[in-house]
């Protein structure tokens, strides 16, 4: 009975989403305030019923209702309870429900905050979000309802969740990633509302900024978690594979990063107006494209879920309607916008323009690499796959160049900065960075690319600190009061920029200084590798809730001292008859020790893969810093004082 309630509740939410998509916007065209005022209650109703559906699905999972096909395919009565919950988004149908639930969450947040917006803007924004929700709810109900029953042959037990996904990283990774993807729909809705009302001034940019920053922070967190998960769970110690699914999340991130900066320029200086609108559409389109690429089967990948052409056609139609109509609206309206005030070629606008150009080129690079196999085949040239070498070759130099601009840009002033002043500010930090990086790369034999990258990293750190110091040391007040006066937005930027540097150092070190080997090892034996001694004490057989495992007990010594106790496992999941390698690792600031079991070679010996990964933690630590930066800048007082002013 309950699953039918869930399905019915989805149908009801579709009804409210459809109304939300039509009624308020009709109210705007007819100048009818009553129709406009329906936006908030409709949003709340739509969200309520989606939430009911989600809860029903959760109950089906937690009570092992294997009559529901989706539950029986993705759960098992022996599955630990938290994985039963996360199994909701373990596959296609449930992921979509999560997508829509998160969209409703964002819409509700906008609805609750919309009283600070001009009378007609809030309802139009909600209406646009309602259109997106309508599309996805239709898609779900027609092609992929999670509530389909498998009656009357109810299986006694479920087929279990894919063991790869039975992990804490995967419990939180998809929701965070979706929070980011879907969050960009808010910036998109603001942009569309601005196009519809024709008010393409800087105010929409101001409203969209905090939402964009928070979505960006979520997406950053999602990507960071995904990379971390791949690192320890896939058992090969890689942290980024340029896999289409990863690219699908990287593209909206790059475009979103450009959008954050472009919104700042539009808000502060009133320039780049039509470009910022296009970027908002572009960012959300890439989020949709990400969903499409992963779900449709046009691209295969390590972790693509479903390859179903009917769904593909539906998503494609959805994309064409949503993106096509926004772009059409854009082409008709943006051309009427008067060009903004001119800006100097040496001001901060110019640096941010460079930032936008590079980020857009990077996005297109990834897009091209991801779609190239498709284009290639569409033109009947055969089939190819584009791999890491392409991405690394094209991506790295541009990313480094971007970081150079990122170092210098914040020092410049809006409108105009004397070039001589910038040169004076940058000379010494530049010289110091190059020398310092040179000394380090020479001492550790790192090579030319490392020298270059380290120089850039140091340059960003030095110039960021210098900029802060210049800001707090000028004027009569003391350093601490002035430091407190600087807006949160500024500290958010600092944190995010420094976070990127930390990630860069991590990426550089892990790719130049890591070591790996495969050994044959039996109980009681010791293997020396990269300055460490790995002693295999014994093998043990374990029984988990839904698997059995062989576990090795390895002690790692360095200079005779015990530094780590590693317990890699080889697990056999009974329900899916699948073997999984559980790597074991010892985390450290400058290196990770990473051991994964290979195969049993004979009665005693196993093959074992050992990795020493240099500075790998820094990659994710940098990600966390960027997340903090994004959140901090969204909390800037400027976005809040408006709200408080209203209440007063």
């Amino acid at each position, binding site marked *: 009975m309950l699953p039918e309630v869930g399905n019915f509740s989805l149908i009801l939410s579709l009804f409210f989403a459809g109304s939300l998509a039509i009624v308020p916007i009709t109210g705007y065209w007819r100048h009818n305030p009553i129709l406009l005022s329906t936006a908030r209650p409709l949003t709340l109703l739509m969200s309520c019923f989606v939430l009911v559906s989600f809860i029903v699905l959760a109950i089906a999972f937690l009570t092992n209702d294997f009559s529901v096909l989706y539950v029986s395919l993705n759960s098992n009565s022996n599955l630990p309870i938290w994985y039963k919950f996360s199994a909701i988004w373990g596959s296609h149908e449930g992921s979509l429900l999560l997508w829509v639930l998160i969209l409703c969450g964002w819409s509700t947040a906008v609805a609750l905050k919309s009283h600070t917006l001009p009378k007609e803007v809030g309802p139009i924004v909600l209406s646009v979000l309602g259109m997106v929700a309508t599309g996805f709810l239709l898609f779900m109900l027609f092609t992929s309802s999670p509530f389909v029953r498998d009656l009357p042959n109810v299986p006694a037990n479920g087929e279990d969740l894919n063991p790869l996904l039975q992990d804490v990283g995967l419990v939180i990774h998809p929701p965070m990633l979706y929070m980011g993807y879907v969050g960009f729909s808010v910036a998109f809705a603001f942009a569309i509302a601005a196009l519809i009302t024709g008010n393409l001034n800087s105010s929409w940019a101001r409203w969209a900024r905090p939402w964009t920053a928070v979505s960006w922070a979520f997406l950053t967190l999602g990507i960071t978690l995904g990379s971390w998960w791949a690192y320890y769970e896939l058992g090969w110690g890689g942290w980024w594979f340029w896999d289409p699914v990863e690219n699908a999340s990287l593209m909206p991130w790059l475009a979103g990063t450009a959008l954050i900066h472009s919104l700042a320029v539009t808000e502060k200086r009133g320039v780049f107006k039509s470009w910022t609108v296009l970027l908002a559409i572009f960012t959300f389109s890439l989020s949709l494209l990400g969903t499409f690429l992963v779900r449709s089967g046009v691209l295969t990948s390590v972790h693509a879920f479903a390859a179903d052409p009917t769904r593909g056609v539906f998503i494609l139609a959805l994309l064409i309607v949503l993106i096509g109509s926004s772009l059409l609206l854009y082409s008709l309206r943006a051309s009427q916008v008067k060009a903004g005030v001119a800006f100097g070629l040496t001001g901060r606008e110019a640096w941010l323009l460079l930032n936008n150009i590079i980020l857009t080129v990077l996005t297109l690079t990834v897009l091209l690499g991801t779609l190239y196999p498709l284009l290639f085949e569409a033109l009947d040239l055969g089939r190819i796959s584009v791999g890491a070498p392409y991405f690394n070759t094209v991506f790295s130099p541009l990313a480094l160049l971007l970081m150079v601009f990122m170092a210098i840009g914040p020092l410049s002033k809006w409108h105009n900065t004397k070039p001589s002043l910038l040169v004076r500010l940058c000379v010494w930090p530049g010289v110091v960075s190059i020398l310092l990086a040179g000394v380090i790369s020479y001492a550790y034999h790192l090579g030319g690319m490392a020298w270059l990258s380290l120089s850039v990293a140091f340059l960003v750190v030095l110039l960021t600190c210098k900029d802060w110091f210049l800001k707090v040391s000028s004027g009569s007040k003391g350093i601490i009061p002035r430091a407190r006066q600087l807006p949160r937005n500024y500290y958010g930027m600092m944190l995010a920029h420094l976070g990127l540097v930390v990630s860069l150092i991590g990426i550089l070190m892990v790719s130049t200084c890591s070591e790996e080997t495969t050994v044959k090892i039996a109980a009681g034996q010791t293997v020396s590798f990269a300055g460490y001694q790995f002693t295999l004490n014994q093998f043990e057989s374990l029984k988990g809730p839904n698997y059995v495992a062989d576990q090795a007990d390895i002690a790692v010594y360095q200079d005779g001292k015990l530094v780590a106790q590693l317990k890699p496992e080889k697990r056999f999941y009974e329900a899916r008859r699948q073997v999984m390698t559980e790597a074991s690792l010892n985390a450290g600031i400058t290196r990770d020790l990473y051991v994964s079991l290979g195969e049993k070679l004979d009665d005693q010996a196993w*093959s074992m893969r050992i990795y020493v990964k240099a500075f790998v933690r820094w990659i994710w630590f940098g990600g966390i810093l960027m997340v903090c930066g994004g959140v901090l800048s969204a909390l800037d007082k400027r976005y809040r004082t408006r709200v408080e002013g209203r209440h007063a």
Partner: protein
Amino acid sequence: MRKVIFFIPLVVFIALGIVFYLQLGKNPEYMPSALVGKPVPKIHLVSLDTDQVVTNVELPKGPYLINFWGTWCPTCAIEHPYLMRLEKQGVPIIGIDYKDDKASAEQWLRNKGNPYKMVLLDELGNFGVNMGVTGAPETFVINSKGIIVYRHQGAVDDVAWKTIQGYMQ
């Protein structure tokens, strides 16, 4: 003129939409290797016969085949007798036991015969990843200079062998 610029995103998008539409429903599995024309990637695998680590140095000198297989793979069982015939004709084949366990591999070779000059264990599938393998069986043709010249997906049979033979000369 200025107005036209704003239509560019729409036009590009429509073109992309058409490409996507044409791609839907096509078989995404057929994929020639990007490694054709490149040397065999670094090998660092344990040999099934000797339990020793084998590297690229130990690979045969003349043209030979690298065959990915596993006891878990039904098509490999179908392919196996044909490989035995090739072995009798003197074709050197390096077997990569892909994502498999050693004991069942040994039993398989005992029961069905061993067509391989050398069998290497790739339990984690790392080497498979480096070779761009999407499944088993897959067969690569390596020429006398150690360059990958051809990749065949699926079982080797009479039809496939004709093509492969062409690449081996």
